[in-house]
């Protein structure tokens, strides 16, 4: 196992910059996720590390050696591809055993040892029954597990997994996630894991890197990126229902700071938070504008008045979960979503009190569009 370090990595496709000056370092034995929406440059980053694509600039280190000029087969990495890329003319067994038979790897297993290794891995991923089949006779989920087994069969310096469980059905996903986590903990292996699903990233990773259009938005532990998103983009990417992002104005009156959303509501901002509002706020048409972010679970709603700082809005819609409700309110530009701790049965247009847990308020610059249209 080895650490992976990437410095100032840039890759262009024509005029499109897929990966833009990305630097990060993944520690030995770390489960490192790259999270981002499609087109963020996640797969390209992985392909650059694997050596399938050549970077336009920047350096890649695996362990302590610079691997820029090494071919993929010389880099000692394993990769699971999002499109599976199984060999159609091989059986499942041969597909999984293929990396073990590679001339450059010098594994030199006897057929018996090879069969043992392959069967062990196949059973772990629940495809032990399928070893004699051809990939074209498998379902999408089965193919994906074969692809994962092929990637995990060796002990390379680093595993590169590109959406390895994205196409499994919900139940299998959970068990595959557990298997992966178990493997990574037991073997202490270095994994770079690409996903667009924040749940996978939060559940598995030691650290998460968030990419947006080829640029790093944030790197941090799952707690950090969830609790302290560095931008409205990160906040929006992680969490369901997504974080509320509300644009408004900072107003100073009698030494106090207020956050005001035209027509809709106005709240006083805790003194402790004033300095962070100053950092995030910007001037627009002579006003101090700011965007606040608050997760729906920290939006308190009640029939009774909650505090002096709470305000009233009419209910737009109520959606029920098994043990809670999602209450929506309509603002001028966007929706405000609250997640209650218990199920509520409020009617449309009923006025309820709303209060923000101020220690969970985030202040952002405006970088994503959240208008309700």
């Amino acid at each position: 196992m080895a650490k992976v370090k990437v410095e100032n990595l840039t890759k262009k496709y024509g005029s499109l910059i897929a990966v833009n000056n990305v630097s990060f370092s993944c520690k030995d034995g770390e489960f490192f996720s790259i999270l981002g929406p499609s087109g963020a440059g996640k797969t390209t980053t992985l392909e650059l590390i694997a050596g399938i694509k050549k970077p336009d600039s920047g350096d890649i280190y695996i362990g302590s050696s610079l691997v820029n000029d090494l071919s993929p087969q010389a880099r000692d990495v394993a990769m699971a591809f999002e499109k599976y890329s199984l060999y159609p003319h091989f059986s499942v067994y041969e597909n999984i055993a293929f990396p073990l038979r590679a001339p450059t790897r010098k594994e030199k297993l006897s057929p018996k040892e090879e069969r043992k290794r392959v069967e062990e891995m196949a059973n772990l991923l629940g495809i032990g029954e399928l070893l004699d089949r051809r990939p074209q006779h498998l379902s999408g989920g089965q193919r994906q597990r074969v692809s994962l087994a092929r990637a995990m069969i060796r002990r390379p310096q680093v595993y590169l997994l590109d959406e390895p469980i994205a196409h499994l059905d919900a139940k299998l996903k959970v068990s595959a996630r557990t298997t992966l986590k178990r493997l990574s903990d037991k073997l202490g292996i270095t994994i770079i894991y690409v996903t667009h699903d924040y749940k996978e990233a939060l559940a598995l990773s030691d650290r998460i890197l968030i990419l947006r259009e080829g640029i790093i938005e944030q790197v941090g532990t799952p707690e950090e990126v969830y609790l302290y998103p560095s931008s409205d983009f990160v906040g929006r990417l992680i969490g369901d229902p997504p974080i509320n992002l509300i644009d408004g104005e900072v107003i100073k009156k009698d030494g106090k700071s207020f956050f005001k959303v035209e027509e809709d509501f106005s709240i006083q901002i805790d003194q402790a938070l004033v300095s962070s509002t100053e950092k995030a706020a910007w001037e627009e048409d002579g006003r101090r504008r700011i965007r606040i972010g608050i997760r729906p679970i920290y939006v308190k709603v009640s029939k009774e008045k909650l505090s002096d700082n709470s305000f009233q809005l009419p209910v737009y819609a109520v959606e029920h979960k098994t043990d809670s409700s999602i209450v929506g309110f309509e603002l001028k530009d966007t929706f405000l979503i609250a997640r209650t701790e218990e199920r509520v049965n409020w009617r449309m247009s009923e006025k309820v009190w709303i209060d923000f847990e101020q220690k969970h308020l985030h202040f952002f610059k405006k970088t994503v569009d959240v208008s309700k249209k």
Partner: protein
Amino acid sequence: MRRVMFWIAVVIVLCAFILPIAWVYVTSLKSPEDIFRPEKLAFLPTLYNYKYIVTVRPSLLEFRNALIITLASTALVMGVSLPAAYSFARFNTGGGHLLFITISTRMFPPVVAAIPFFFLFRDWGLLDTHLGLILLYIYFNMSFATFLLYGFFREIPEELEHAAMVDGYGRLSIFRKVIFPLIKPGAAITTVFCLVWAWNEFLFAFLFTRRVARTVAVGLAVFWGSIEIQWGPMAALMGLAILPTLAAAWFMQRFIIRGLTFGAVKG
């Protein structure tokens, strides 16, 4: 009613294909006297014509020539076209221009190339040699084979090669273990096309050979003399000459089906 029309159409098409072949074999078994009495349906079959083409004229030599030239030219064409098409498909070698130039050799009437080639071959002493005809067939078949294989290579997703690279294989072993097994049906079709074309080629074989390297296709035309047409022996030789191509067509048909559904194999 539609079924009836369907079967009528099938019968018409079958007749169009089968009657000439049937005529060839029937004629080849007739004695010279019977050939010009078509009103006489029943006749006594004879191997006279087959004996004639084996003993009286050098038909076996023509067969051997055609076989040597066909096999050699096809082997060389495939040896060059396989890597060339792979390179065009995977690396876009020459930015598309090289592929176009390769194909463009099939865009003018072949006879246009005949005169320059004739003078060139005369100066190099390649007229009426096996090597001369092999070179010519390579020239004509290579472009076609490369273009056909290019299409098959394009069908193989690049990701498969990426996977094999990461799995620890170099370019050559990837080609051998992953790409070639997948291209096999396509390569088989291409090979058969080249074989059939080279076997049947008449114009260049006629212009560039006299006696030593004469192929079957040219040999067939020799029965058409200035005094008489030897229908019987000609039909016998025809009957033998089309056997390899019939075999090739039979062999090819299952591969054509597989070749056409090739895209569905993707992993």
